């Protein structure tokens, strides 16, 4: 009984520690036209996809499984899944690789004049227990034809 409480406590502590943390994977700056950046309007675009940490889900399932046999089965499934997820990656697995494809169109929608500069692209993960937000964020500056911020 006491062992169960300790296990539950450890799972809860893990959830608290892993909850809501943000992890920066990549940040990139584009060329800067100082006039546009200093006098234009700042805009921010964000797209995200839900990521799933199957390893973490399996660990929690193992923690609450009653029999050793069930734990072994979960372990075997985790091993099989891990074989299919080898290789370099950022963040958790997602189920769409096109979620950031329309970002260039979105930038032009936000700044129809096309006078855009100081674009910075950030790839980050907002980490929660089991799931995560796999985020691509773009910050840029826009100017209209008269040289005034348009947003």
């Amino acid at each position: 009984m006491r062992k169960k409480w300790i296990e539950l406590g450890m799972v809860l502590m893990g959830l608290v520690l892993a909850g809501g943390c943000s992890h920066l994977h990549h940040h990139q700056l584009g060329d800067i036209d100082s006039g546009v950046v200093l006098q234009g309007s700042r805009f921010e675009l964000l797209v995200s996809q839900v990521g799933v940490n199957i390893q973490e889900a399996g660990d929690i399932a193992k923690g609450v499984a009653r029999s050793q046999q069930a734990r072994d089965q979960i372990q075997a499934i985790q091993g099989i899944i891990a074989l299919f997820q080898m290789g370099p990656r950022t963040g958790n697995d997602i189920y769409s690789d096109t979620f950031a494809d329309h970002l260039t169109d979105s930038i032009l929608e936000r700044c129809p004049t096309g006078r855009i500069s100081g674009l910075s692209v950030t790839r980050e993960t907002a980490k929660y227990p089991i799931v995560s937000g796999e985020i691509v964020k773009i910050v840029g500056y826009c100017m209209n034809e008269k040289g005034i911020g348009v947003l």
Partner: protein
Amino acid sequence: MNSMLKSCAICTVFAFLTLFFSGCTHLHSVSTTSVPVQRDSKVSVERSRMIVLALNFNNDYVNEMAEDLARQCSQGRVQGILTKHEKVTYFPLLLHQVRVSAQGYCVRPRG
């Protein structure tokens, strides 16, 4: 016996040196934009955050980097920007620093 003690001491010193000086800095990514011909004026900016126990709730500290570079080159364009993202581990799991630095060239209109 004496030589054994000496070997142990050397091993211990080696282990400590390995622990303190190897694998402390991790380079996550590097990117660059087109490098201009005019490269006489360099501008740079660096942002970093110390992270304790992997608890970090946002990455907003990198958002103002473009503005900082623009301020350093208010009459021109910043080109050839090399952006570097690295992590420095001070104590594994307990304390690390995430550092993003950018350096480029300020190109001012001639004449």
